[in-house]
């Protein structure tokens, strides 16, 4: 499984890019299984670090999505409405979820780099 070096990772298995784009990691994709539904917040809404901002569903179960940092939602990947499986097939690309304008830069310090995130999931 891949964990690109240019992303930051949360303990809840979301990634954050430098431009504020948020998605879920390859590890999360594997844990969730067949992804069949994604529910995301509206553009303009506020998300709070470590709090749920949406849900992702497999055939079997509902999983919450947790914001890696706080901020305003400035874009939402609406194409996932018709093609939620894109999250599984391209979780770092076309399967992105939302884009955030971070409001608390200090929160970035709580995120892990690729090596630290991989060490965390290896130990879990």
């Amino acid at each position, binding site marked *: 499984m891949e964990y690109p070096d240019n992303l930051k990772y949360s303990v809840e298995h979301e990634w954050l890019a430098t431009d504020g784009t948020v998605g879920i990691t390859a590890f999360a994709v594997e844990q969730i*299984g*067949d992804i*069949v*539904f994604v*529910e995301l917040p509206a553009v303009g809404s506020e998300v709070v670090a470590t709090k749920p901002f949406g*849900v992702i*569903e*497999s*055939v*079997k179960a*509902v999983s919450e999505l947790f914001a890696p940092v706080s901020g305003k939602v400035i874009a939402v990947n609406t194409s996932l*409405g018709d093609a939620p499986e894109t999250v599984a097939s391209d979780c770092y690309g076309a399967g992105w979820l939302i884009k955030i304008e971070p409001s608390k830069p200090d929160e970035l310090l709580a995120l892990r780099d690729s090596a630290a995130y991989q060490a965390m999931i290896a130990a879990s």
Partner: protein
Amino acid sequence: MHQTALVDRHRALGAKLIPFAGWEMPVQYQGLVEEHKAVRSAAGLFDLSHMGELWLEGPDAGRFLDFAVVTAPSKLAVGKAHYSMICAADGSVMDDLIIYRLGEHRFLVVSNASNFETVGAALRERLPGFDVRFDDASMRTSLVAIQGPKSAAILQPFIGVDLSTIKYYSGLETSACGVPVLLARTGYTGEDGFELFTAWDDAAVVWDTLLKAGEAEGLVPAGLGARDTLRLEAGMPLYGQELDRATTPFEANLGRVVKFEKEGDFVGREALAAAKDHPRKTLVALKLTGRGIARTGYPVYLPAAAEAAGVVTSGTTSPTLGYAIAMAYVPPAQSALGTQVEIGIRAQRATAEVIALPFYRRST
């Protein structure tokens, strides 16, 4: 946590193991949807060794079961099986069962894993006065199921009976893959298939043989996740969701299972007779016409109503049909086909329509 005789094989196959009814069980191997579709189109192999196997043997075994459960097992022909339920004196469902008659005075009761202790205790409690021996074989019996349209073709080379002579809901003690088995043409997927009960350690050779032989036919190991979506598409109830101690068979649309015409008293007769025409709720099948997936416990509303009128018992997106389906309890007056309802999915409501069960029926 109990483990089945096949747990190391599940691990080696890459299964995700989860706690289920006190057992560490495979929920999926390569993927739920892939496993589900394999069972619909080819075959799937399931480890169901967590199920309960309870034997009743003795001159009064048939008469005893007629008293202890709601069906009339004494009327079963030897070698046949039927779907049954054990109810409490108040008419509520303690478990749903498959009962096999394997001899004039010998019956096997198969219960849900979550309930085999409850069912065993209830049967023992109902024993006094009957000449019958009770034997809980659950912890020394394994169960491997092969389900799907190619099941018979895959299994046939490893068994000494012509499978075309084994009818649906029949059971036969024979041998397969070189070990003694109770072979049953039963299942919980809506497809043709067989269940093979074996001595605990004998499950390994049955599992290995069928997995290898079936590979070229498209057989895959299938977990409890696929089993749940398969049974839901087939409109089959799951104890703990559609059935429980707050539900009568009539409310679950399973009133036909209760045999009031049988001779003598049976546990729950009086309460069931009183409950027959007075359901407090009715189980319905729902097709979601709005966005989202209904899940167990989500509220069901009549259109625009503020108060919930019912509750979802099972729900998923159907891998075969491609849309979201659910079963739910609603007020009997709102259970007619075509009734429009709304399901509360987090902060939103999704529209749904009452449709006929099953959601999926195999073409034969």
